[in-house]
């Protein structure tokens, strides 16, 4: 065993009274790919940031030894020489991690000049090489692009080029793919592995090591040599990737691994009637033109080109697609929250768009929605009682206060909350609990169709599973139909009977979920399946 590249010994971090990392011991060997896994609040990001002393206002204790030197005792000036040169970092959201006022070329050249004695011309030359290596399209042209001119994946590649510019011995990647679309994720992961292996081939055990911070177990399985699992500031298990997935030791690890959702769907009755039928839905957003011409004529961007979707009683239909594919637009069109250009929707045989205002409002009780963000979907100044009861007051004005109370309590117990939470405000709950409240708000109206717009993508994996199980059990109990919108094929696979694949506003493939996942026809679906499973 050689001297480890980085060793973290008895490391603790505290914010005021709150301990976020406690007695952590971890080593990284040269040329190793280590994944640090945990759910939000486990202290994994604080640990990573502490390596470069990037956390402010925290009391750190213990040792972080890199190349024989304790980083925690270095002065601000000395640590600056380590940052970027020996240890580099890539962040989750490349748009905010890059300075929007400089071209990516300028930013990489600056980094190189700051750490290495190179002339500007040499540094530019090197930047071009880096951009080529990280797979930026047309590097000669894009070296002069500003961050906003590049797509998310290209920006993350530029970030990686910048991180690699000084040949770091350790690269810290903090959720590097979370903000990206599925297919792009796979490519970035592949790129990182390639770059690292290339470096290891050249330098042997002196090659670059990568510390990957993530909550995504699929990613870990593909990427890491070794995995360290953190729970609430403590390291609970460290093992080889294969060993960890085959024989997890710690109960928390077992829980994490089991939290990958499993398929759990009931067959739909063959004579189930069609509840919702959308035909040739077309949605356009106006694009304003510049100057005076904008007042006279307007461009438009077509978000949805004639989508046909049907949903039967008791069925879950998945809509899968990446950002910008039009899946949320479809949800809003079905909810009648945006104007459609053309097309019709029939709910229970009634044409939704032709109904009178009053009937449309009545229809809303039968067509409910659960949104993605459990922090944005509840008004912060209403109590749970008000949030859940509001729809009842509107749609069932005949109910007495007592009847309303019973129904609120009943629906809360359906979603696993007790009546004690009635007078609490949303900020008192965790993400998973908030999502339960949002579900209760939709279900209290006894809807027939519920649109689930990325219902679990903001939640931790173990909570995601609980929420999905809750949704399935509610469906069984009330015979509901779900329109499930997600970018995550594992969620779709767990819940949906049928699936529609959406790309650039068009449905490119549809059919039985199992069939689509096992034998995808369209090349895009194939890449999507490959990327996520």
């Amino acid at each position, binding site marked *: 065993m050689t001297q480890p590249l980085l060793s973290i010994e008895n490391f603790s971090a505290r914010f*005021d009274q709150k301990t976020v990392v406690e007695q952590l011991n971890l080593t990284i060997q040269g040329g190793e790919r280590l994944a640090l896994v945990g759910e939000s609040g486990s202290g994994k990001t604080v640990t990573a940031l502490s390596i470069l002393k990037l956390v402010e206002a925290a009391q750190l204790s213990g040792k972080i030894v890199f190349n024989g030197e304790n980083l925690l005792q270095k002065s601000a000036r000395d640590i600056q020489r380590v940052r970027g040169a020996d240890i580099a970092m890539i962040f989750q959201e490349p748009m905010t991690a890059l300075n929007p006022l400089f071209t990516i070329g300028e930013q990489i050249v600056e980094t190189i000049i700051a750490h290495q004695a190179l002339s500007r011309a040499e540094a530019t030359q090197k930047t071009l090489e880096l951009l080529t290596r990280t797979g930026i399209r047309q590097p000669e042209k894009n070296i002069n692009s500003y961050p906003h001119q590049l797509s998310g994946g290209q920006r993350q590649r530029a970030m990686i080029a910048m991180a690699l510019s000084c040949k770091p011995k350790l690269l810290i990647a903090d959720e590097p793919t979370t903000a990206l679309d599925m297919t792009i994720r796979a490519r970035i992961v592949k790129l990182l592995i390639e770059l690292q292996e290339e470096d290891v081939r050249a330098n042997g055990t002196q090659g670059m090591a990568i510390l990957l911070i993530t909550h995504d177990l699929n990613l870990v399985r593909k990427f890491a040599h070794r995995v360290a699992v953190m729970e609430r500031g403590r390291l609970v298990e460290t093992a080889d990737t294969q060993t960890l997935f085959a024989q997890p030791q710690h109960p928390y690890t077992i829980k994490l691994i089991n939290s990958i959702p499993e398929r759990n769907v009931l067959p739909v009755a063959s004579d189930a009637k069609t509840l919702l039928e959308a035909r040739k839905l077309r949605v356009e957003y106006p694009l304003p033109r510049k100057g005076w011409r904008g007042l006279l004529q307007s461009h438009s961007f077509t978000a949805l080109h004639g989508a046909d979707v049907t949903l039967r009683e008791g069925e879950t239909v998945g809509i899968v697609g990446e950002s910008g594919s039009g899946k949320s637009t479809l949800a*809003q069109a079905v*909810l009648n*929250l945006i104007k459609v250009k053309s097309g019709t929707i029939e709910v229970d045989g009634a044409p939704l768009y032709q109904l009178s205002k009053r009937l*449309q*409002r*009545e229809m*809303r*009780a039968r*067509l*409910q*929605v659960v*949104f*993605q*963000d459990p922090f*944005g*979907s*509840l*008004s*912060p*100044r*209403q*109590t749970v009682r008000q949030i859940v009861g*509001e*729809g009842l007051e*509107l*749609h069932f004005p005949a109910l007495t206060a007592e009847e309303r109370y019973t129904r609120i309590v009943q629906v809360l117990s359906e979603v696993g*909350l*007790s009546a*004690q*939470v009635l*007078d*609490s*405000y949303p*900020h*008192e709950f965790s993400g998973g*609990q908030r999502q339960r409240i*949002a579900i209760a*708000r939709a279900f209290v*109206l006894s809807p027939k169709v519920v649109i689930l717009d990325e219902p679990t993508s903001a939640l931790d994996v173990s909570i995601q599973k609980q929420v999905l199980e809750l949704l399935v059990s509610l469906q069984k109990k009330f015979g509901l139909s779900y329109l499930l919108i997600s970018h995550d094929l594992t969620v779709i696979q767990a819940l949906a009977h049928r699936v529609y694949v959406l790309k650039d506003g068009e449905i490119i493939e549809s059919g039985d979920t199992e069939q689509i996942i096992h034998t995808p026809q369209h090349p895009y679906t194939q890449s999507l399946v490959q990327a996520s499973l």
Partner: protein
Amino acid sequence: MSQVIPHLSPARRNWQRFKRNRLGYWSLIVFVALYVLSLAGEVISNDRPLVVRYEQQWYFPLLNEYPESIFGGNLPIKADYHDPFIKAQLSKAGNFAIYPLNPYYYDTLNYFSKAEHYPGKPDDENLLGTDIAGYDILARLIYGFRVSVTFALGLTAVGVVLGIFFGAVQGYFAGKTDLVIQRLIDIWGSMPELYLLIIFASIFDHSLLLLFGLLSLFGWITLSDYVRAEFLRNRQLEYVKSARALGLSNTQIIWRHILPNSLTPVITFLPFRMSAAIMALASLDFLGLGVTAPAPSLGQLLLQGKENLDAWWIALSSFSVLVLTLLLLTFTGEALRNALDTRISDARQGGTL
């Protein structure tokens, strides 16, 4: 999920955070107390006694006007309680009168004083001296403060209502509605406020009502910008979408969902808007565009102070009152701003003194 913690609404939580800032909290208390005292100005500073007992009869000069003849005078004219003759009558055996702490109204002229007035130094008769017209400065300060603060409260209230209304309509409906109203506001906001004031002041009689009307026409614009921005941010949050999916009407969504979540800038700006309004009134009075004498006004006292630098008590006292008022409001405002700023933690909130 069995939490037994008291459920603090965000508003209550902010109030507790505000209370933890002792300077701001006490500033608010002192300010409110001063205003309440000034509202009871007639009891504290008045040229008429509160209660009179004269020849087995009760009189309430504070409420009713009594002719001199009642108290043994010759003429059926209004009794002047500073008249040594009346005073002597009231203090005869069996009679008495309870005077306010400061026996002057803001427009009382003491014809019987022996001291040098116009202006007169602080002495036993006039605690803070008299101004160039011979009015008691303490009385004028009390009533001037009352007028200023009432004026500012009214102006702020009208500004808040108009600002929220326009900001809400713009921010909620966005798009073309927003564009049209914003252009109108731009035109409206580009009108020279001060010139308008000067022009109107030269056409009409100077009065508080005129000033109030003119200032409230312009005071809401900045506020509506903030409300608009908050509405634009909140309208696209998912809880608003959920409310629309529930089928709530626009008014219900604005009133119940977006407005309570958009009030932070409004509340934060209240004390600062108050102090701005007090300053506006004082400066207009100082420039001679405001109310005319003998109406009490801090700005006019300041002007007198400037013109009579040898009468140091005029400038000093009026200046002190203005500075104290504005300081109290600023401290309150700062504490409010910190209380509503979520980036400052609860623990650190207490420390900002």
